[in-house]
């Protein structure tokens, strides 16, 4: 609905992705001297993070992103992150990529849901950007790119009304509807129930600009208060102390959007396939959408500006595993319920002559990467399509 949702969705999901990758890279890293040629070091980790952040904040990409437009479908967006995660020497198997995307989306869904005011989604975004700036604090060039985007966010969103922010929030909530993947860190912290739904607290500070519930005031026709009563509920609310900062630098106050992962808290997801809610989630977009070609053109144009790094070492050496062991990763791939698979769009790029010409031109501009081993999906994979040209 709101045409201003995509930048917020992209940046926040991207931020969560970086938190997770950083945590996994640290967990799997070996001190520099002791590392074999095919093991992760600290230097590798920083390089991967820098590469991904540079790609994410690519100027042309950001320009396109900030143009008013409807949200991408879940599948189209997933493809963008697939691409982004591979913008460096790092490789992820399908199972790890699926898990990464599950974690990213559930984390941001949680943040959107728990934002006290719709406008606070901007503070969540700023929390992610603050952390990203910290990841690249030693690289002034990339830091500059991120600051540019920060400024663009402030310019685009500072003047929106509360009603417009609520529309953005509603648009995001529709995007996240029916996703109930259980995340173990959320279950442990008791912010998610075992049925996958989030816990909504009825205590704590009220949003900035809201009064603590309880007071009723009645006025006569002259505007004088003539009666005052109070009511109580089970809720236990307090007045907030201060408002978060919407400037380039400042205390955001809100904790949503800050990094909740650390090396000692590995992240697992549980996929529950038995909930019937999933049926409605899975039914959408299974039939090939001929108009997805429009999305492909657009997507291809965006990604056309990205350099795809060629993997230097062997395929397994630079692979990142989101699970604790390779066996776990394999097991996850085999047991992922059908209805939760992120089916990539099956595009028939050769249907209309006009489109075909445009598409080829755009795809021709892409740097051709070394052919990637066939992904586990059957049929034409969007990435394979682009690589094959």
């Amino acid at each position, binding site marked *: *609905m*709101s*045409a*201003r949702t995509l930048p917020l969705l992209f940046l926040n999901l991207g931020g969560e992705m970086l938190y997770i990758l950083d945590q996994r890279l640290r967990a799997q890293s070996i001190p520099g001297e002791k590392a074999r040629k095919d093991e992760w070091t600290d230097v590798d980790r920083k390089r991967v993070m820098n590469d991904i952040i540079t790609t994410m904040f690519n100027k042309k990409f950001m320009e396109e992103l900030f143009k*008013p437009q*409807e*949200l*991408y*479908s879940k599948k189209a967006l997933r493809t963008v992150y697939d691409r982004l995660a591979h913008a460096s020497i790092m490789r992820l198997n399908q199972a790890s990529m699926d898990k990464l995307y599950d974690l990213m989306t559930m984390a941001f869904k949680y943040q959107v*849901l728990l934002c006290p*005011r*719709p406008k606070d989604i901007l503070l969540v975004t700023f929390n992610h950007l603050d952390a990203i700036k910290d990841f690249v604090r030693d690289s002034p060039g990339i830091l500059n790119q991120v600051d540019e985007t920060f400024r663009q966010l402030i310019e685009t969103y500072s003047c929106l*009304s*509360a*009603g*417009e922010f*609520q*529309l953005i*929030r*509603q648009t995001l*909530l*529709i995007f996240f*509807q*029916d996703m*109930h993947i259980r995340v173990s860190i959320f279950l442990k912290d008791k912010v998610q*129930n075992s049925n996958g*739904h*989030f*816990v*909504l607290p*009825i205590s704590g500070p*009220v*949003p900035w*600009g*809201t*009064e*603590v*519930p309880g*007071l*009723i*005031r*009645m*006025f*006569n*026709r002259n*505007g004088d208060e003539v*009666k005052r*009563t109070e*009511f109580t*509920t*089970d*809720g236990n*609310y307090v007045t907030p102390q201060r408002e978060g900062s919407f400037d380039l630098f400042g205390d955001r106050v809100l904790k949503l959007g800050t990094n909740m992962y650390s090396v000692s808290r590995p992240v697992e997801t549980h996929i529950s396939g038995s909930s*019937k*809610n999933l049926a*409605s989630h899975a039914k*959408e977009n299974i039939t090939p959408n001929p*108009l997805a070609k*429009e*999305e492909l053109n657009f997507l291809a144009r965006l990604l056309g500006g990205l350099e795809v790094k060629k993997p230097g070492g062997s395929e397994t050496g630079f692979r990142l595993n989101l699970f604790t062991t390779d066996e776990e990763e394999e097991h996850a791939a085999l047991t992922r319920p059908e209805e939760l698979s992120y089916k990539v769009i099956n595009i028939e790029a050769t249907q209309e002559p006009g489109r075909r010409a445009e598409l080829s031109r755009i795809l021709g501009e892409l740097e051709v990467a070394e052919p990637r081993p066939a992904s586990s999906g059957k049929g034409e994979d969007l990435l394979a399509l682009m690589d094959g040209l």
Partner: protein
Amino acid sequence: MYRKEKSIQLKSSSAALYNNLSVLRPPGRQLLCFSAVHGPSVTVVSAAADGLGFSHRQLQAKEGGMALSTCVLTQASWCVLPSRVLLVLTSQKGIQMYESDGSIMVYWHALDVTEHPPAQAVFARGIAAAGGRFICVGTSSGLVLVFDIPPKGTNITVSEVLEQHRDAITDIAAELGRAPDGAGDLVTADDAGTLCVWSAGEEFTLLSKIPAFGCTCSSVKLWNGVVAAGYGNGQIRLYEAATGLLRAEVNAHARWIYALDLAPQAGKLLSGAEDSFVHVWKLSTNPDTNDVEIEHCHAECVTDTQVCGARFCDPEGNSFAVTGYDLSEIFRYAR
């Protein structure tokens, strides 16, 4: 007090949209009908009074042209007119009107996209029957379309376009009780929080305009000349419709209010918000003393739920139904 009853299971979850529940009691039939918007579709459930039989139907948003992303419905509401009942759906593309059981679409009105500046969202939202003859629907540009509805058939026309609001319409409500003189038949609310009170007819007349105070008004009701408005900062305010005077201010909810409803026989007001709470209030108006009073009757916490729809199921307010974001059920409560 109210106790929780058995929920009605839905085939799809409810979307986080304002006023996302509509209830119909077809006259002369032991039935209750509910509708809740899922996103690109709306679920319509008919429940037999004995609670044993249910029938479900899903209606889709009409795409109306080539679309890159799915078209989303913003609201569904039954409009009760003296001669017929229509089910009205509003979406990003336009307005669909069906026979009350959703079986046949009788009218489609496409929104004029060119009327909106390019970066702005386009959608219709806010539905109410007015003046015994019209159905009013709001748009994201602040217009209110007035449709003239014949007693039967499909010859529905746009009789007027009301241009008082400058922000997206959020909700529209018709007088549910008896309006004192000059108090108006209809109230329209918008994203900025401005309220307009109208008298309905061949030509609608603006009677009063209640200025915004900096908060979105997401839901509004009109009863015995009193406007009850729910706001984004969790407040409910009561105004005199004819004069626009503020008569009561309630710090009702800790988060954005999503739905208000009113039971006209008893003057009961229902409010539902993102804070998981649903409250029942009692309004009383005294036309002789000009007193307007509101008292709190009941609080219900729908655990871990962001309420998006709340409606009374009977005109005395002895029972009500609630929907929540991402949940595939309709919660029911009764005395």
